[in-house]
């Protein structure tokens, strides 16, 4: 699943560690989501959407 996490994070000038801290996950998890190697659970996806004040589908795209 593709996502815009890296772009959204860069727009806010946050590091992966900053984002990880805000989401209560490890930096490795943020990195794995950004690179598309790990798809977050629905609760975590909602948390990400809330943090960036966007709809889930504006961040995550299930097209390959």
């Amino acid at each position: 699943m593709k996502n815009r996490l890296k772009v959204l994070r860069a727009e806010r000038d946050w590091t992966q560690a900053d984002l990880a801290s805000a989401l209560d996950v490890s930096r490795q998890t943020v990195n794995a989501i950004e690179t598309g190697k790990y798809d977050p659970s629905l609760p975590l996806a909602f948390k990400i959407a809330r943090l960036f004040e966007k709809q889930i589908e504006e961040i995550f795209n299930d097209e390959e």
Partner: protein
Amino acid sequence: MTKKNDSTNWPGQTKKTTLRLAKWIILWVLTVAIVSFGAALFWGENHLINSLAILLNVGVGIGVIMAMINHLKKQDEMMQKVQLEAMGISLGVAIVGGIAFSMLDSTNVIPFNAEISYLVMIIAFTYLVSVFVNLRRYK
């Protein structure tokens, strides 16, 4: 974005539960040493003392299990997945390897007894390698 202190953020909580788990494991190893060396060097085959020492070992072992559960609960979802997969592989190796090892002993294919300590080492090694490989996969 507000920064969280060590007691509420993910790395802080994980560090805390990892340290707690390490302390329980060290304590458990000490109780294993008490049973093993105590019987060999001090009280011999005194059933009462040996039973009490083993009871202490089991009690501390339950503490290790509780600390492990707490440690896993504090992991984030990806790390829990990594740990779960590693534990699944380790359990498979423990059952398949353990039974095969036991049969090698009972059929006298190996010239030594199938001690449980070998199996514990294999499980630990499998778990470590599995965690390492899984973490690399998500890197």
